[in-house]
């Protein structure tokens, strides 16, 4: 059993849990994930690690209440236990000195990107972060993100509102300025449609664009193949070859997007995804 030591509500329906897991905290690297099971009858669900404390032996992750398991997690607090907690899974994000790095963040990515930003900062990168959220209320981790980013662009708009406030607009501006202020790398941890759009936008400029994919997984150790995708003509598993991939090499985005919804149960579909998808073009 793994004890929960802290529960924070970051925004409506957005929570951060800290879990006592010294073995995982010891080895965690930016961009990796954990798989947890809430109780004996629970499902295996992956979450990107958003922070860890090696001394205290804790691992943090941020989640949004969507399905049965995340709703259940939202009710847990200090003193409660998770039946299973395994990780750190997946390959760590690639970190180096690139120069000017633009990151695209939305949803859980606002928090899960923090370890990557921190590592990039240590390598002396200049970071421009574009944050997308449906409204001000649903922005979180602002303090940390402000501290770690040299420039912060907020893309906060609701459906039907002015589109200049979308993340793609902000990215377009940056890319339009590419000749004067070069963008050396784009890293996206946001909705899959935004990652797809961003990859297409940077392709003509040949700016390396890394996307953090989160297809449906079952075991998370390369056994089931549920999270497979086509990368440069080869079958790759997000759990062992990813979750970070070169957005220009990912093929079959349509299938990847559709696969995510295979197991979205009725209760999730009724809430209505906030996907503004490819209208963002």
């Amino acid at each position, binding site marked *: 059993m793994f004890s929960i030591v802290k529960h924070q509500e970051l925004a409506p329906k957005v929570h951060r849990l800290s879990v006592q897991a010294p073995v995982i905290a010891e080895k965690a690297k930016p961009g990796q994930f954990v798989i947890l099971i809430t109780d004996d009858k629970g499902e295996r669900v992956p979450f990107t690690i958003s922070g860890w404390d090696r001394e205290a032996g804790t691992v943090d992750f941020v989640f949004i209440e969507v399905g049965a398991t995340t709703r259940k997690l939202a009710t847990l607090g200090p003193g409660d236990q998770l039946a299973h907690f395994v990780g750190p899974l997946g390959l760590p994000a690639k970190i180096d000195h690139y120069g000017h790095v633009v990151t695209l963040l939305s949803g859980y990515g606002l928090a899960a990107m923090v370890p990557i930003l921190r590592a990039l900062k240590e390598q002396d990168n200049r970071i421009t972060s574009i944050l997308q959220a449906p409204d001000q209320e649903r922005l979180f981790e602002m303090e940390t993100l402000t501290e770690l980013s040299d420039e912060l662009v907020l893309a906060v708009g609701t459906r039907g509102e002015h589109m200049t406030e979308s993340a793609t607009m902000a990215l377009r501006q940056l890319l339009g300025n590419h000749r004067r202020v070069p963008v050396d790398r784009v890293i996206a941890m946001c909705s899959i449609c935004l990652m797809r759009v961003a990859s297409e936008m940077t392709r003509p400029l040949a700016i390396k664009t890394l996307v953090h994919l989160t297809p449906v997984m079952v075991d998370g150790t390369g*056994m089931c193949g549920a999270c497979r995708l086509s990368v440069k003509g080869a079958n790759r598993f997000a759990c062992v070859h990813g979750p970070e991939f070169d957005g220009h090499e990912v093929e079959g985005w349509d299938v990847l997007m559709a696969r995510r919804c295979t197991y979205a149960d009725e209760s999730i579909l009724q809430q209505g995804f906030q996907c503004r998808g490819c209208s963002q073009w």
Partner: protein
Amino acid sequence: MSEIKDPKALEQPAKAKKPKINLNRLEMPKQEPADRRRNFNEVATGYTYEMAMEEAHRCLQCKKRNCQDGCPVNIDIPDFIHALQQGDIKEASRVLKTKTSLPGVCGRVCPQEVQCEKHCTLNKKGAPIAIGRLERFIADWERSQGGFTLPEMAPSSGKKVAVVGSGPSGLTVASDLAIRGHQVVQFEALHVAGGVLVYGIPEFRLPKAIVRREVEYVKTLGVDLRLDTVIGINYSLDELLNGEFHAVYLATGAGLPKFLNIPGENLNMVYSANEFLTRTNLMKAYLYPEYATPVKIGKRVAVIGGGNVAMDSARCSVRLGAQEVCVIYRRTRAEMPARLEEVENAEEEGVKFYFLCNPTALLSDGRTNVSAMELVRMRLTEPDESGRRRPVPIPGSETIMDFDTVVVSLGTSPNPLISSTTPDLEVTRRGTVVADEHGKTSKARVWAGGDLVSGGATVISAMGEGRRAAAAMHEFLSNGRKKIIPPSPATE
């Protein structure tokens, strides 16, 4: 090989009686096909006491133990059957346990027809003793008695061993070494121990209560089982060797699913057999929503492949409510690697077989769900390296069949998590770990066995490799320099 107890000690003086040969091999009672199509309960319900006695009494107690030689773990088959003939089930159980820690599993999933029963003298008359069914009867009897029949344990050797993986091979090594006095820590990546016995083989063929019980038995021997621990991630192999462990046994199985590499393979509702069975068996999707993991299945299911895993996938599909389930295999019935018994069971349950067909593409319904399969007819040519006749496509014979669910069951290869983080561990091009007949790998103090070495075989052969490796490891641990090891810190 196993010196725990000398099985010869209980050998009876051979009487010069002339047994009357009884060729009436007793069938095991089974659930009717119409019933079992709708539930996940075990298909075969096992011998009753009377049936077991009747079957045991058919045994001729041959002097030459051909059946025992046919067993990959060399179980003293005539001895346990003799004990049964005497009505001493407890003794029969003890005899079994000297050579196998998993009799309830072996009795159910071993291919006895090509092992012990194939070598039975009565097989010449076409009616071998139902050794597997008797083994199962004894294991089930022991389970109904509550406690375990524990073997004699050697005193502590002070040596510590890591066993990586808790499938049949890992469980065998863990119990063999624990019995010989070594301290064993067993690591399992998943949240349940048992490996393929829990994620792969379905409940109706091997009830999970039996696996749980056999894992409990291994724990009773003092094995420290650590779930949710991935070697290659949480600890590298070198960390284990440089840390507290004197030797390591790798038995991580073959978990990486193979795909067809044809267009449309990543469409929705195309599963690997591993995903489909993991959802259904390990995560108990057939009990959704009581268990949180769902499995989606359509009306017309195609299972591609001809092995036991394909049969399991097809039979799970039937039970999950598919209207039509078809097995697509590129060779003919004669070349199918699946056990005949399982093929017959599947047929009784309404599974259809399409032989000499190979999928060439999966087609989309326009919303990225699979809707049909393009197949090409095959014909058999001369035998290939596996000894089976090689199938080649017949040009121009393509046809299209409608399916809304496809399960790809083409076999698996080993998970590279450990080999990719251990450069000095020699692996083949197929990703299997290179090991000699004792399971010794290219790396010092590391042994390996099971599907990780073979690339994919049976439960019992994995156990056999484990048995041999455990003997070699025991020898190494006994001859090695003595070191004083502080007791390991207690784990939660």
